[in-house]
């Protein structure tokens, strides 16, 4: 493939700076838990269902803990104590804890070792659910095969899960490799995951465990019919980041949009909260071998794609470091970037290719996720289709791994069946017609493309030096990323962040972190 010059020394330096940035955050993470993490643990142990108003039992349970100031002990602590104390099963224990009138405080007499022992089989069962789904994925992928890269990723977003299933099957028929169900607009701000199948949502469909099942079933059915394993993805972000990761893991999703920085910048989610949630979600994801997608592409919708290109690269280094700390191997890190330069700028295609190629080379083991033009799209669907064609060409030329296909109706509505069909047709054509274009030449060392690549890396390095010096908290507060400013304790969900108690119990996390017999941290 045609390569741009990359100074390996600078890359090493960027990685080292990003490691510092991530380690700083990791220190905070390791000392805290959140209501979201605890709800996830509860669900993993088998706490299921919701009341008549739709409040999930996991929420009722953790809210109770939280009211009593006991979240820092971990929900496992209480479930374990109940089991050790003779509760018939987790569900019964949870109900009793949630709706009973016990105070839910750590008793001095609590035998931590005993309650851990009582949890052990449940912890093992939880892990087995993840592993089972993962193994099934491996089996099916092996049996049916997957399409060639760039993988063609499309979204469905009708608001109604049954319509989504219809659209998902249609997308697979038309050639997509990955189907994402876009979430309803407000879901990331909800501090609970709705229950059951849903049929009303604006701008997308709620992510619920039942909805995951419905799409999985639909895609498995067409995968078999088409002889190609079609992957499913959704969003593990917002206030229920880790719960959704759990649901995705056990319902055998293949990818997840999973990125704390997206929530911080674009949904005004509290940073501490979402960094902690992200860490736990990724421990599940790593075990499940789900591929994550990060959201740097979004930066270029609020900040200029030419001037702020380096913020995307800098962010990718930081996110690589975060992901590494949560046990993800590079093969699971679908770092994101986007084709968002003003198309009417002379040589805009060259600038786009430069960055795409640079990212491809620096993160060479990573399944890079490449996002289409959105910001400069207009309602001229004909022209928009051509704009996407150039994006497709850049994608195949630079060997992107996962390409979210542009839709000609981007500026109008979430895609209609026909829009998606045409988008896939166009991508198939261009990926084929220019399949080996990247093997045909080398970029000139002093050309616009190479120069642009060099500049972006230089600027990213400078930026990482700043961030390392100032910390990520201060950098976000000063609007470095996406031209958006957020404060460390501001935003939604900060109240759900709790310092871990000395006796904090979370055997599931222990297993996921690779020290199953480990004690409280």
């Amino acid at each position, binding site marked *: 493939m045609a390569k741009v010059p990359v100074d390996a020394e600078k890359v090493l330096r960027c990685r080292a700076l990003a490691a510092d940035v991530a380690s700083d955050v990791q220190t905070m993470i390791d000392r805290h838990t959140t209501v979201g993490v605890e709800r996830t643990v509860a669900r993993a142990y088998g706490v299921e269902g919701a009341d008549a108003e739709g409040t999930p039992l996991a929420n009722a349970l953790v809210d109770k803990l939280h009211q009593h100031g006991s979240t820092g002990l971990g929900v496992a602590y209480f479930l374990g104590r109940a089991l050790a104390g003779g509760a018939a099963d987790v569900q019964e224990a949870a109900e009793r804890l949630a709706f009973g009138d016990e105070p839910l405080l750590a008793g001095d007499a609590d035998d931590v070792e005993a309650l851990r022992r009582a949890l052990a089989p449940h912890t093992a069962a939880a892990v087995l659910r993840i592993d089972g789904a993962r193994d099934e994925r491996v089996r099916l992928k092996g049996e049916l095969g997957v399409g060639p890269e760039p993988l063609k990723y499309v979204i469905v977003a009708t608001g*109604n899960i049954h319509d989504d299933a219809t659209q998902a099957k249609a997308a697979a028929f038309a050639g997509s490799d990955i189907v994402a169900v876009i979430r309803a607009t407000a879901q990331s701000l909800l501090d609970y995951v709705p229950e059951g199948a849903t049929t009303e949502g604006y701008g997308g469909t709620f992510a619920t465990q039942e909805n995951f099942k419905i799409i999985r079933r639909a895609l498995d059915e067409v995968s078999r019919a088409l002889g190609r394993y079609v992957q499913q993805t959704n969003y593990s972000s917002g206030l229920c980041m880790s719960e959704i990761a759990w649901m995705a893991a056990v319902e055998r999703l293949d990818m997840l949009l999973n990125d704390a920085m997206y929530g911080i910048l674009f949904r005004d989610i509290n940073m501490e909260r979402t960094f902690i949630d992200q860490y736990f979600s990724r421990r599940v994801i790593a075990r499940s071998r789900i591929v994550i997608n990060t959201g740097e592409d979004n930066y270029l919708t609020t900040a200029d794609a030419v001037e702020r290109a380096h913020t995307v690269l800098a962010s990718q280094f930081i996110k690589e470091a975060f992901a590494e700390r949560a046990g993800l191997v590079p093969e699971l890190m679908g770092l994101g970037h986007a084709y968002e330069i003003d198309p009417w700028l002379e040589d805009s295609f060259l600038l786009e290719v430069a960055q795409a190629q640079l990212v491809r080379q620096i993160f060479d083991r990573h399944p890079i996720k490449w996002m289409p033009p959105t910001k400069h799209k207009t309602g001229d669907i004909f022209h928009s289709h051509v704009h996407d064609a150039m994006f497709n060409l850049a994608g195949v030329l630079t060997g992107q791994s996962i390409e979210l296909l542009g839709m000609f109706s981007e500026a109008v509505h979430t895609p209609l069946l026909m829009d998606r069909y045409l988008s896939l047709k166009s991508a198939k054509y261009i990926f084929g017609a220019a399949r080996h274009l990247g093997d045909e030449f080398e970029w000139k060392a002093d050309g616009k493309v190479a120069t642009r690549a060099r500049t972006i890396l230089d600027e990213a390095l400078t930026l990482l030096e700043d961030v390392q010096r100032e910390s990520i908290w201060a950098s976000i507060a000063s609007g470095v990323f996406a031209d958006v400013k957020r404060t460390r304790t501001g935003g939604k969900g900060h109240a759900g962040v709790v310092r871990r108690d000395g006796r904090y119990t979370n055997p599931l996390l222990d297993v996921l972190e690779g020290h199953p017999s480990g004690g409280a941290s």
Partner: protein
Amino acid sequence: MSSQTFLRAYGDREGDGMVQLSFTLTILPGDRAREAAKRFAEAHGLKHPLVVTMEQASFEHTYFVVYGKSVHGVDAAAIHVEELGAEALSRDEVEGAAKALGRKIVVVGACTGSDAHTVGIDAILNYKGFRGEKGLESYKAFDAHNLGAQVENAELAQRARALGADAILVSQIITQRDCHKENARALVELIEGQGWRDRVILLLGGPRIDNKLARALGFDAGFGPGTLPLEVAAYLVREVERREARPQPAMR
């Protein structure tokens, strides 16, 4: 009229009626133009039309793209198309059937009038064929004569008669204000006038042709875009069989 057979446009939900419409009006962009485009779309039965593009396309014209929810639907149960009804035969079956006939089927084809587009008729008749499938020339079953393009109706009729053609294959590509229809119809009238219409199979083909239209113009069958030689071969061999089986019309 069951709900399955009543078809409405499908956008992303069953029955949402979503369609896309584009057009040009002689007005310059602005609030009035947007309103005009909306009303124009509404006149077509589009509810809640959304004017998503309004761009000046000339000194006096504006180009629009509109999405809207169509109120219209079609009753699929009420559609009775004259299906070609040709059996799908394999190449061997065609050859077998012709062998049984005991003679070659003579076909004469041309692209008529001032039309110079030979690719369509060549695709059907010539050895080379179309999309990897060889044309009628390659069959033992057929004696195929391709007169090429720009052939006048009179010449085609005369040559076909001289060759004792079982079938005449007419290709019509170009159109503007329906000139392809007129030229095709004229051939049928010519042959009818000459009194041998019932002794020849008349086929019409081209990108604007379908079976329904060809029948309406007086042909026996019509073939549209993407037709493969074998489909035509199968139709012809079965039709010749059918005609041989029925009493021959007396010579006039």
